[in-house]
């Protein structure tokens, strides 16, 4: 029998279904056709929710591991894909941090310069405590000193956290006693099942208790108990039950299995300061007014500094100005006729012998930075020093001759030739400021 005969026989035997079955078999063998066939089915499966075992749940571990594989092979594509998301998130986080920092800084500034701060500093000095301690006590509204996590059934302590500044007596025993007191009250005053004591109060100390079905959380609070504290505790005890439900039911007395709950309990160790409270009360208003206050403070401060600086400077300049005038007045060969301060400029005018020290050098000699306008006109000074200087310049006086001027009498001492002396004597009488010549102390040499 040939292949075509066989084929005909098959068709006759199996009827029209044969072809459709044949097609389906072909589809199963061909991945391309199979893909086309199941794509709508997968789509529907992904959309389908409601049962516990939907496709998303099944796929999620695969997706996670695929993602991890991809990252460990080459992190770049994932990093590129995440980049637009990460950027804004990081910026937001940074800006939040900055805002927080600014507000902390404001607070610090306020506390360090206010009169209150000075009073606290004084208190600290007076009582011998550190400044930070005083600030803490003054600012403290409340502090959660310790938090107990207690196994409800046995009253055994599961975990205990303590604030840095607080002290605690044996927490194991306290935990037991707290449980006993809870039992005592619920025994003594018939109350509903599971509704234990919620708080104990003693002076400024409050013990807040939050009962869970298998564990109890108790917080010792000093000061005014914040309204949301009970909520914080109930959230904490819920979290404890959520994480450790089984361990709590089968607790055999080993607390080390609960050590990882420490951070959770530490979150309940809160401390609140006065300034934070008032800030949250009227935050906007306060910020505005405190800015204004700082503005005024700053302006006043600047004004005061400016004023002090100005008067200091002007005092300094006045002193220097007087020193300069004095220097000019005491200089031989110089006559100060007028000093003035006009249009922001210092001015000295007068007469100056050409042989006297130049006014500019005198000004430099005072080492002052003040700018002075100097206006000196030439004149001949009759000061003895300058007359002698003029004589020395005019006449060629031998080294062996010494000159001195006293009451307009020019005296010569030493030795000279007669010819020089005669010439000098005839011309010297014409010099201004010299009326007579005394040559008696000159030895004539040949």
């Amino acid at each position, binding site marked *: 029998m040939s292949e075509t005969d066989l084929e005909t026989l098959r068709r006759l035997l199996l009827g029209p279904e044969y072809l459709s079955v044949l097609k389906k078999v072909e589809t199963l063998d061909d991945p391309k056709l199979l893909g086309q066939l199941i794509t709508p089915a997968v789509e529907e499966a992904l959309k389908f929710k409601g049962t516990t075992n939907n496709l998303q749940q099944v796929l999620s571990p695969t997706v996670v591991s695929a993602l991890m594989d991809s990252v460990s092979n080459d992190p770049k594509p994932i990093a590129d894909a995440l980049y637009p998301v990460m950027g804004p998130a990081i910026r937001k986080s940074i800006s939040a941090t900055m805002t927080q920092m600014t507000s902390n800084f404001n607070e610090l500034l306020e506390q360090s310069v206010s009169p209150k701060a000075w009073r606290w500093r004084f208190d600290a000095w007076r009582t011998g405590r550190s400044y930070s301690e005083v600030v803490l006590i003054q600012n403290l509204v409340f502090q959660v000193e310790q938090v107990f996590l207690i196994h409800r059934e046995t*009253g055994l302590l599961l975990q205990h956290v303590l604030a840095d500044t607080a002290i605690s007596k*044996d927490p194991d025993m306290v935990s037991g006693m707290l449980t006993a007191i809870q039992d*005592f009250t619920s*025994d003594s005053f018939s109350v509903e099942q599971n509704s234990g004591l919620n708080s104990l109060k003693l002076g400024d100390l409050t013990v807040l208790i939050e009962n869970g079905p298998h564990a109890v959380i108790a917080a010792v609070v000093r000061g005014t108990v914040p309204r949301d504290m009970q909520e914080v505790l109930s959230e904490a005890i819920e979290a404890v039950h959520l994480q450790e439900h089984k361990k709590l039911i089968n607790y055999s*007395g080993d*607390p080390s299995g609960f050590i990882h709950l420490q951070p959770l309990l530490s979150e309940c160790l809160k401390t609140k300061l006065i300034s934070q409270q008032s800030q949250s009360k009227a935050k906007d208003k306060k910020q505005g007014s405190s800015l204004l206050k700082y503005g005024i403070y700053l302006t006043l401060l600047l004004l005061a500094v400016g004023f002090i600086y100005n008067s200091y400077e002007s005092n300094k300049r006045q002193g220097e100005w007087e020193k300069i005038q004095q220097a000019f007045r005491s200089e031989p060969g110089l006559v100060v006729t007028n000093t003035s301060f006009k249009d922001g400029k210092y001015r000295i005018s007068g007469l100056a012998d050409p042989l006297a020290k130049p006014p500019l050098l005198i000004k430099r000699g005072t080492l002052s930075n003040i700018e002075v306008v100097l206006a000196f006109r030439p004149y001949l000074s009759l000061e003895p020093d300058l007359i002698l200087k003029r004589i020395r310049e005019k006449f060629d006086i031998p080294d062996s001759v010494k000159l001195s001027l006293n009451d307009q009498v020019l005296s010569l001492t030493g030795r000279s030739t007669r010819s020089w002396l005669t010439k000098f004597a005839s011309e010297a009488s014409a010099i201004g400021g010299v009326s007579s010549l005394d040559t008696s102390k000159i030895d004539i040499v040949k």
Partner: protein
Amino acid sequence: MVQKKICLLGAFAVGKTSLVMRYVNSIFGDKYHTTVGVKIDKKQLVHDGQEITLMIWDLAGQDDLTRLRTSYLRGVAGYVIVADGTRPFSLNTAINMHKEAREYTGDVPFILAINKADLIEEQWQVEAEQIKALENDGATIILTSAKTGDGVEETFQLLTKQILESESKNKQLDDTENN
């Protein structure tokens, strides 16, 4: 370190508190007995190299008129019942108390401490047969003296041992059940 809660029961004036006073750490005074009805002490000991902390709930003395505060028995791993060897009546109270406690705690280890053993030559009123009978019923009995300290340490050591043994037994049972 493992912590266990145990209770101390007994009639009035059998010397429960005196019995433990020298052997435990305590931060609470006796007045708690008359107010809250319980005082909590702590005893640390080592059993087989394992550190154990016993939290001892020292319940206020009972008599026929006051009922046992069973809520304090919640979660106990074991208990010590104290009776006074010079007062036979206190032993009856102890036995009644044990029955009552048993209903609440279930089958946990316990020790019957007959106190004031230092007076065994003079005023002792408990017959040896009586003790024998109780022991035959499954009770562990230790003669103690708060005055000399005899048997006190032993009581806590023995109770701890029984607690740990019964726990490991229960665990084995659980495991076989689970398997």
